């Protein structure tokens, strides 16, 4: 995997002139449209997601944020009647090319869901299962490798201190916020380059939300994160880039600061100031 360029964070990037050469695009949408049967959900979206950055998707309910997010790891495939046009390029490879295996796509692009959904297994196995079934665990010294991995991922998800004495407990025995961090740890275990998060805090209380936001902040730089959120403050707090969607269209995409302070589009302004949506 190509490591993200840390230099991009160092100086403020101005949207127009922007040091185009320094921008490391990990995921690019080209005219992506998605429809469910007759019903179009996303229209011709062009979007470039930078590596190592946090990108947030905002917009009113039903505008296609989740739909677009699911095209990034081919989770749309299980919905009958779904149709995807255009190209989604991950490091230049079309995710929907004929020879691309969706299982391989989901190994590189992880996902955290709106409702925490740990496996009804032990905390340990919640994290170990992905690498195990994907054959990422060396045969020799398997136990030690897994122990390390579990600890590393739980630390990475800021959950280690709370669960280190009860790794054998069922993941469902944790609180909602802990479950969500467990799900993040589970995603980290696959060492993905991109982590997709669909409203990861919508089922959580403010403290758990705070912890997840802190966590996203820590993961910044090492992972590329795309987060869907209904919480405008959250988008403003955690993301570097923000995309605003409205009825299936990408209305505006830019640096979070700029988009919230000086939106270029009237619709964006109306939405972020709470005039509709």
């Amino acid at each position, binding site marked *: 995997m190509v490591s993200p360029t840390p230099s991009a964070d160092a100086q403020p990037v101005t949207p127009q002139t922007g040091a185009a050469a320094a921008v490391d695009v990990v995921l690019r949408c080209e005219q992506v449209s998605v429809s469910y049967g007759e019903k179009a959900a996303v229209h011709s979206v062009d979007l470039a997601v930078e590596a190592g950055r946090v990108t947030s998707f905002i917009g009113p309910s039903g505008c296609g944020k989740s739909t677009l997010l699911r095209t990034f790891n081919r989770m749309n495939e299980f919905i009958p009647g779904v149709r995807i046009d255009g190209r989604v390029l991950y490091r230049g490879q079309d995710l929907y090319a004929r020879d691309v295996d969706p299982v391989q796509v989901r190994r590189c692009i992880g996902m955290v869901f709106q409702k925490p959904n740990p*496996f009804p297994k032990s905390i340990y196995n919640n994290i170990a*299962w992905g690498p195990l*079934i*994907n054959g990422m665990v060396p045969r020799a010294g398997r136990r030690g490798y897994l122990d390390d991995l579990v600890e590393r991922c739980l630390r990475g998800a800021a959950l280690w201190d709370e669960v280190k004495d009860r790794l054998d407990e069922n993941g469902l025995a944790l609180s909602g916020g802990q479950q969500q961090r467990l799900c993040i740890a589970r995603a980290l275990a696959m060492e993905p380059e991109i982590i997709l998060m669909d409203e990861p805090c919508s089922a959580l209380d403010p403290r758990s939300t705070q912890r997840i936001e802190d966590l996203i902040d820590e993961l910044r730089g090492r992972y590329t994160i795309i987060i869907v959120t209904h919480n405008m403050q959250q988008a403003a707090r955690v993301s570097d880039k923000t995309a605003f969607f409205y009825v299936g269209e990408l209305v505006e995409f830019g640096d979070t600061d700029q988009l919230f302070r000086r939106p270029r589009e009237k619709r964006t302004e109306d939405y972020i100031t709470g005039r509709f949506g």
Partner: protein
Amino acid sequence: MTTLAAADSHLRGRHTKGRLFSWLLGAMTCFGIVMLLLLLVQVLRQGASWLRPEFLTRVASRVPEKAGVLPALVGSIYTIVITALFAVPVGVAAAIYLEEFAPRNRLTRIIEVNIANLAGVPAIIYGLLGLALFVRLLHLQRSLVSGALTLGILVLPVIIIASREAIRAVPSSLRQAALAVGATRWQTVWHHVLPAALPGVLTSVILALSRAIGEAAPLIVIGASAYVPFCPRKLTDSFTALPIQIFTWAGLPDPKFQNVAAAGIIVLLALLLTMNAAAVIIRQRAGSKLKW
């Protein structure tokens, strides 16, 4: 302002209606239970004193006092085991395929509708099918294996339908969680969906096998013998089963055989209860580890 204390006549009427219905429902429940109890009492009164240890170890006889249930009991147990070995893997596999892998198209829908219809086909028709297919075409004779396979086909639709129900009840968030860490469809099903659906699948299996063990008609059609003085040893041995034995006894002119039949019914009921108890225990074992 409306007062809260005195209910107006309309509300009183609604309460009366509610009470009336709860009484009615309670009465229906009681009716069912009373009927079952009557049946049980009747059977116990007739048969309990005939249910001596020798009854379980003897073979059938013309003399009511010497009649025993052993070949029928063993036949029933063997039959149900073979039926399960055949119908459970096939039924559960079909359920998994239809629920998790089959494309959602017209053909699948036609198959689904037909399976539902098959579940309603009378047992005797399955007997005719078994006669034509296993006894005649496959030359399996009027044997244990013919009977077991016939019963297997009989319960297959029930197993498929109920197992699908159980598989469908597994939340899709669990499947998504597995797929999102790079599991294949099969890994998702094997490691997560099936364990989660297991309690429901087991219930369906036990219900189906309970039905199979009480069936006499299809076995009579394929020609299970009424009088078998020995226990079956091979798959191709001729055999009898509890319902057939009971049916035969009940039809004999000597009134004492009514008591023998009742004793046979008690044995059949005990076997059924044992199976159901086993299912409950397995289900609780499996279920206690799972919840969401």
